[in-house]
């Protein structure tokens, strides 16, 4: 079982230089719920490394957004203090410019935060299921086997 699937006991990593995903943490609750439960208890963070050659490309960002939207938790993704809403648009996410070797911070806040981080980290670990390979050199039927990337997103 790769590290990405561990649940609980995640490193309590904050975003960038003390910048957490402000605004994100207020979704799905906020201060009015503090008497019921502390939102900080529902916040999970994890740092993952981009390991695929192509980096965090458009297809990867699309898979990330679709995956994040499956969860109730708010999701944020950031690099070097630049944090964006993980459920927004792929256009926002590719703005991180995360290349191979870059560390990316993930943060989920909500009742299924741990599950969300597991799923999102697994995307990185799996190299987003495919490399974005559409070179015509093997153009005949090469994409048939990878065209079902949506399976990842449910």
């Amino acid at each position, binding site marked *: 079982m790769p590290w990405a699937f561990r649940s609980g006991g995640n490193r309590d990593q904050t975003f960038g230089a003390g910048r957490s995903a402000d605004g994100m943490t207020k979704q799905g609750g906020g201060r009015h719920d503090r008497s019921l439960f502390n939102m900080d208890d529902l916040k999970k963070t994890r740092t993952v490394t981009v390991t695929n*050659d192509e*980096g965090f490309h458009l297809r990867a960002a*699309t898979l990330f*957004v679709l995956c994040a939207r499956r969860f109730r938790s708010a999701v944020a993704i950031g690099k070097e203090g630049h944090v964006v809403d993980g459920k927004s*648009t792929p*256009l926002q996410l590719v703005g991180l410019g995360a290349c191979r070797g870059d560390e990316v911070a993930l943060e989920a806040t909500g009742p299924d935060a741990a599950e969300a981080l597991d799923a999102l980290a697994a995307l990185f670990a799996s190299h987003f299921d495919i490399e974005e390979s*559409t070179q015509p050199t093997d153009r005949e039927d090469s994409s048939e086997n990878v065209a079902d990337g949506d399976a990842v997103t449910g």
Partner: protein
Amino acid sequence: MKFADFVCGKAIRANLEAQDKEGVIREMVQALLDAGKIDADEQESIVKAILKREELGSTGIGRGVAVPHTKHPSVEQLVGTVAVSKEGVNFSSLDGEKVQLLFLLISPPDRPGDHLRALENISRQLRDETFCRFLKRAHSAEDIVQLLDEADNNQFGA
């Protein structure tokens, strides 16, 4: 990376005529051919590769913007162009909106970093809603060239 580093000014189109996804992609690739940026022999292969990439998931990425792209061994450096569809084109975008603003990118297979930096630049600049709106309303290729130039010089404060 700036727009000037990858957008071919001569291939910019402010009024796409095609009304469907494949049509606008063909029109933009034709514009790159007319501008001398790609080989005529490779045109069809490039179009097919871009369409194949779209099959993996739409590059319509929200807010009326699409970035159709592919790697292709026939180019030695990142080649791109910009086009606007006044009517908007159904691109099966994630948010369901029609696409009006398109950035088409063709990159050498061995240079994924350049592709990412171009995407990063597009994303960063389009965060400015004024810039995005002006581009969609541009009347001529010259207007678009000027807008991209202003963006490169940070005049939109993105």
